[in-house]
């Protein structure tokens, strides 16, 4: 079962999306609504607690008005109370997002809330990820200006959203980008295209009274980047640096932060090759030095690994370790042509991906009562602690007009102590095998079967099996059932057999959905194991639950 479907069942419950547009001479109004409701049933076997309210709901509605170069919008949010796993500071109703934007020739001005990113986000990215309960939108002013062709300037000032309030720190920053081939006419026809950019961001947060240390009130970070394209070849690299930024995250050390991101790819018909690498050192950057979890993050760094969608492959998702990480990802994809031995009648796609992350190479400095630099870093150095490895082979094959399959093998090494803070636990080594077969019953009806297996070295994880059956009926209806079951046993050092944490428990789930035009209603019932849900390398903990879920989305 794809995690996309699963996560809808898991985290929310109902999702309704309505969208219509009223095009009038006076402008256009767009809107959408989403509501996720879950009724919880206590289940001591899986650790699902009693929820006093019994039923919880997350909902929001957007209203956006546009006319010519003017637009304005607002988002109403309602949490009565927030779904399990979401921060309880999401409570009640409010309009935490509203903005006005207008564009006058080369100038664009936004006042109110906005999302923005400089370069790859190494020093600044504000965004919303509803599944994580993450919304660090800026509230303030943004100005974009294009002084000449191919040159783009941005300036921002404001504070970040913190649930229904705002963070303490003030952010000020600017970003400039030049698309060389657009700016210089002589280069317009050149095969090689080059884009360069640079950005600077500073946060201001008042220093605390009576503090143990002299905290900097203004912390600046800067970054430079270059992007080169020639034919099927692409290369992007960005370097960022942050000055002393003592915080809860880094134990109040005054060392500077550094980050470098390198991404390259080559693609031609039927073949692609990518190689990415990243080094992060003390780069957790927030607008409040005391903030924790996903609150008030300023910088962003995507995890260099496959974002698995299959349940067992995504059981232990990796999250970027912005305090220190050297990571890489490489992938080769090839399509065996139709009519060849391996390609068969319809061709065969194969993808091999290998990604990994390690600690950084550091030397401890005994200066905690002095300059408090904490440690020295060997830049690009690879530490000896393995954070993550994932070797993946995925084959997509269509056998006939009625049958297509996806086969996936993943070998993972996951440092649960570092990534999930479960100190003392050894790395989890696991092998995952997945078969996904779709059989077309008719042109508008399909039967899909997923069989998944995960075997591990760890009694905490155990050995999992998943079976899913999904039927699509016409263009409007779908019904799916799946079961997730842990059958693993583990022999400890003393030779005793113990069971995995969720041994012999069936996490059964059934769901059905109706989709028509822009409306979607889905209903599901079942159990959800406790775990971690990640998007783009940022994660939140999902507690165990059992119950009925309704999701509605609609737009107009």
């Amino acid at each position, binding site marked *: 079962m794809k995690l996309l479907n699963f996560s809808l069942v898991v985290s929310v419950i109902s999702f309704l999306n309505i969208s219509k547009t009223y095009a009038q001479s006076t402008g256009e109004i767009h809107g959408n609504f989403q509501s996720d409701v879950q009724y919880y049933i206590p289940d001591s076997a899986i650790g699902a607690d009693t929820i006093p309210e019994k039923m919880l709901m997350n909902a929001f509605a957007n209203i956006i008005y546009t006319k010519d170069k003017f637009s304005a919008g607002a988002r109403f949010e309602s949490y009565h109370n927030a779904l399990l796993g979401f921060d309880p500071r999401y409570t009640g109703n409010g309009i935490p997002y509203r903005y006005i934007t207008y564009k006058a020739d080369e100038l664009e001005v936004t006042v109110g809330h906005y999302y923005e990113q400089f370069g790859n986000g190494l020093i600044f990215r504000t965004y919303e990820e509803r599944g994580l309960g993450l919304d660090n939108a800026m509230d303030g002013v943004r100005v974009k200006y294009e002084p000449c062709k191919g040159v783009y300037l941005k300036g921002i000032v404001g504070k970040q959203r913190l649930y229904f309030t705002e963070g303490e720190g003030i952010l000020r920053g600017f970003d400039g980008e030049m698309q060389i081939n657009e700016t210089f006419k002589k280069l317009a026809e050149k095969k090689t295209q080059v884009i360069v950019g640079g950005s600077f961001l500073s946060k201001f947060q008042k220093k605390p009274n009576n503090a143990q240390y*002299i*905290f900097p009130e203004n912390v600046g970070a800067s970054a430079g980047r270059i992007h080169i394209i020639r034919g099927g070849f692409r290369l992007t690299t960005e370097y960022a640096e942050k*000055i002393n930024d003592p915080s809860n995250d880094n134990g109040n050390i005054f060392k500077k932060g550094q980050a470098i991101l390198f991404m390259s790819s080559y693609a031609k018909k039927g073949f692609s090759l990518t190689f990415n690498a990243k080094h992060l050192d003390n780069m957790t950057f927030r607008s409040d030095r005391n903030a924790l979890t996903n609150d008030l993050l300023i910088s962003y760094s995507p995890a260099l690994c496959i974002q698995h969608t299959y349940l067992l492959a995504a059981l232990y998702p990796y999250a970027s370790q912005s305090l220190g990480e050297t990571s890489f990802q490489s992938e080769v994809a090839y399509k065996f042509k139709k009519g060849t031995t391996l390609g068969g009648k319809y061709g065969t796609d194969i993808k091999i991906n290998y990604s990994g992350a390690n600690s950084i190479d550091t030397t401890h400095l005994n200066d905690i009562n*002095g300059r408090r630099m904490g440690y020295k870093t060997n830049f690009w150095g690879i530490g000896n602690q393995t954070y993550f490895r994932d070797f993946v082979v995925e084959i997509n094959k269509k056998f006939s007009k009625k049958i297509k399959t996806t086969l996936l093998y993943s070998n993972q090494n996951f440092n649960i102590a570092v990534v999930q803070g479960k100190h003392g636990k050894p790395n989890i080594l696991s092998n995952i095998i997945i078969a996904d077969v779709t059989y077309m019953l008719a042109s508008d009806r399909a039967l899909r079967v997923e069989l998944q297996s995960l075997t591990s070295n760890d009694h905490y994880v155990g050995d999992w099996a998943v079976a899913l059956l999904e039927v699509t009926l016409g263009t409007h209806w779908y019904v799916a059932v799946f079961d997730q079951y842990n059958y693993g046993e583990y022999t400890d050092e003393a030779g005793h057999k113990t069971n995995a944490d969720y041994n012999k428990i069936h996490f059964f789930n059934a769901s059905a959905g109706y989709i028509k035009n822009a409306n979607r209603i889905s209903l599901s019932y079942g159990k959800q194991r406790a775990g971690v849900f990640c998007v783009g390398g940022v994660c939140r903990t999902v507690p165990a639950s059992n119950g009925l879920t309704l999701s509605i989305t609609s737009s107009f």
Partner: protein
Amino acid sequence: MKEKKLYTAIAFAIILGSCDYISDPIPPINENLGDASSCATPTFTTVAPVKKILFEDYTGHKCTNCPNAARLLHDIDTANHGHIIPLAVHVTQLYAGTGPASGAQAGSYSYDFRTSAGNEYADVFKIASLPNGMINRLNFHETNLTHQKGANVWTNTIANIVNQPPKVSIQIINDFNSSSKKLCTHIKTEFLTPNTGTFNLVVLLVQDSIEAWQLDLGTHNEHYIHRHVLRASITPSEWGDAIANGNIPMSYNKITKFAYNIPDYISNIAVNMPQMHVVAYVYDAATYEVLQAEDEKILP
């Protein structure tokens, strides 16, 4: 081209101006702090508690209107004898810094009454204009600045609170060794009503009646008497340390002692022992409101 240079200059100014590089993150240790472990704890006698109000007069020797405020404070102190603990805090480079003043003799304002404690207070309480007052630091508000009291409300504000029963009593016993110049100061605090919160004790060194230059209503006065001048913090931090927190019962008391080696000079201004006082106050760490203050001369 000129525009480009201007934009570049502005950009670099923003970058450089938006970064605070900290080379030494550990706050400087007050080198005059002594070892209090050898200070023998005296016996405190029972005294009837009296409401005592900390009156901070933010001032500067080159602030021409400040002497009028100081005179008003003196009148209020006289009228409420025994209830006011005045504290003159010299702040801002413009009004309290060293350097020439228009029409003044060369070298007349070469001394500096400013202290790191006073600077920190001015920073947190956003004291930008002088004269300025705070009365028990009432009504603290970070943006509305309602804690800053103009001279026109001083008398009434004092009248409104002076007859309130004290919530805390403070007693100070000083023991000064004139040969070693070590001061042992013992502070007994007692809560007279139940309270909830975190309460800090701050102990300051104050010098009264220093004769030095002052700009007074346009005239440079070489023989101005500077009253109740804050000279240093005796507590390691000017914000003190907690003496009680949580639910504090009535009669909860504590004796805290500090040792301080009195220097001959502070910021090149002689420390004249007969002029020296210890001022102590207890405040609510959440609101900054001072519950009680006390003043005791070091030499009897």
